[in-house]
């Protein structure tokens, strides 16, 4: 206490108090606010393993009733918490579930990308059930390679190796099949870069929403996002941007993903040279001004 009493009249004491208070509020809020990450939970409960007797339909029904129906309704018609998904289509379900955005435990917050709660087989079963009972819409672009197979989904190493090699081959073939990556860049810059940023880093939207970064998206997820328009994203169907053009565009995004980030530890999310320069100048000049104030501050005469 003595230590504080001695220093509370110091000229900098006020600033220190304000900074401490702000830090306390910031850290406290971040700790107390409902984190999206903690919303995963429970959904993993749907551990219905694919028994041989259990058909895809039954497995899909179990997953749907346990993980989807509480918000989207038994018939997928939605509720005040969640949209109607009867015309969302298989592509939308594959996108939302394989990127880990669904199932969501907090319908008020935008879900970030996270590890999926279900395996690809379970997602396929869910889609089988959806198409039989709930509705229809854009189909999964089967010709576009999805996520790489996981070792855990295979019983022996050999089957995994084979599946992985097959996946790699189709992946290479798809990207090499892009005729004109430069045209893909043009399409990306005119239609995608406004929200997802020139580097694919994403950016802010209104009402606290954001356009996510594209660094981990698989070609199929990119394709599905374009044809289904998840969240606030507009739809780019196969007539306005043809499948060949989408292939060019995806090849360009894959190039972007491979681009090394040369920003060091202060990369500012690659927001671009002008903004980075602006921040550099503002922060740098503020520090210089602070030094100048320190050097020239008037000294009390009788210290």
């Amino acid at each position: 206490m003595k230590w504080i009493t001695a220093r509370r009249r110091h000229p900098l004491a006020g600033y220190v108090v304000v900074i401490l208070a702000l830090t306390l509020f910031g850290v406290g809020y971040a700790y107390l606010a409902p984190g999206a990450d903690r919303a995963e939970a429970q959904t993993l409960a749907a551990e219905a393993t694919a028994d041989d007797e259990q058909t895809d339909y039954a497995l899909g029904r179990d997953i749907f009733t346990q993980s989807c129906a509480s918000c989207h309704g038994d018939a997928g018609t939605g509720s005040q918490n969640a949209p109607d998904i009867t015309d969302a289509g298989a592509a939308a379900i594959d996108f939302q579930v394989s990127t880990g955005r669904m199932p969501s435990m907090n319908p008020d917050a935008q879900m970030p990308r996270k590890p999926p709660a279900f395996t690809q087989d379970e997602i396929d079963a869910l889609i089988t059930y959806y198409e039989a009972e709930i509705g229809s819409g854009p189909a999964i672009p089967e010709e576009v390679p999805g996520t790489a197979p996981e070792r855990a989904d295979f019983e022996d190493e050999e089957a995994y190796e084979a599946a992985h090699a097959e996946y790699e081959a189709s992946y290479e073939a798809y990207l090499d099949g892009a005729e004109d990556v430069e045209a893909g860049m043009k399409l990306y810059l005119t239609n995608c870069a406004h929200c997802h940023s020139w580097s694919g880093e994403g950016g802010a939207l209104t009402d606290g929403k954001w356009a996510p970064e594209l660094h981990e998206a698989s070609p199929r997820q990119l394709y599905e996002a374009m044809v289904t328009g998840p969240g606030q994203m507009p739809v780019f169907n196969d007539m306005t941007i043809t499948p060949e053009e989408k292939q060019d565009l995806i090849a360009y995004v894959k190039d972007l993903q491979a681009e090394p980030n040369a920003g060091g530890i202060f990369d500012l999310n690659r927001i671009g040279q002008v903004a980075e320069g602006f921040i550099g100048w503002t922060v740098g000049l503020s520090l210089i001004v602070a030094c100048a104030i320190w050097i020239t501050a008037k000294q009390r005469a009788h210290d």
Partner: protein
Amino acid sequence: MTDTNPNNDNEGIDGSGRVIGTPSSAGGDRLVAAPADPHEEHEGAYPAAETHGRPEEMQRRGERLASLWFVVAFVAGVLFFVAYFWWNSAEIADPRIGQYSNMALGGSLALALFAIGAGMTVWTRQVMPHYEVGSPYDELPSSPEEKGSFGDFFMRSADESGFTKRPLLRRTLLLAMAPLGLAPIVLLRDMGPLPGDVLHSTTWRRGMRMVVEGSHREGPSTWIRAEDLENQPGAMISALPYVEPTEEHPHGLSLNDQAKAVILLIKMPDGAFKPTMTEEQLGWTYNGIIAYSKICTHVGCPAALYEQGTHRILCPCHQSTFDAADGAKVVFGPAHRPLPQLPISVDAEGYLVADGDFSSAVGPTFWDAERGA
């Protein structure tokens, strides 16, 4: 302040034990005198009104702190060399490694320079004595006598020159100057012809078909059909007018024309248009498809950040926000007028076509931008 010699840390620099870089003590020119009362004596290196020495305790603290800074500067300086030799020149050609080399070199150098400056500042503020130096200004205005005599002198000289007495001289001199005075105004002509209506018109004409911006398609699939969009609520695409390619412009339009004519085609869900839209604005849409200029009316950035749920169009430069469901009215940000709307309809073959030019001038707002073309 009982200390009689405020700067008495100088033991050891007298006589033969002189330290490099310090003034010689020979000649009796002492840098700092030892005044009897430091608040009234005005002796010191500067003609100061008051000289205040630092208490011995503070000087010792300052000495320790400043030397700590200098040691930091030394360590950072050594780190600079370490960083320089750590990576060889072949390695730093790779940006993934070069970035760390850059940061280590720049960081250690900056720290070394900062620490030297900080040490010197501490030295000045805690070891050296503190002066109050005043230097009053002279009186600025001239005295009335000086002003009066200059006025007399000027009038007498004007009289002697004959400027008032000899009108021919005066008038021919003014005449000689007239063309030179006019020249800068006339030379403005080189800035080109007057803009006329150029700012109010774009390439769009009635019946022009549309193509996807950035697409390199050929044949009839080039043109956007109404059915490409009308069954897909939430769809959006950037489009340009279709113009036959020429040798000069293989894609039909110059970059300048593209920048002015580019539009956002948006398919709104049924019933999404707000009741405040005028009949005329609704007449310019086709089956829920609406076309706005993609160029922000603030400073002309491409505003294509469209949120299909809220129907807002955002400009990524300064966050101007337009309501696509309400004639692109500004709902937030620095823009002052709505995005111009392009009237569209569909031709006999089902292709989307323009029904004329934009509703007002595209791009950054100017004095009569809202006048129709």
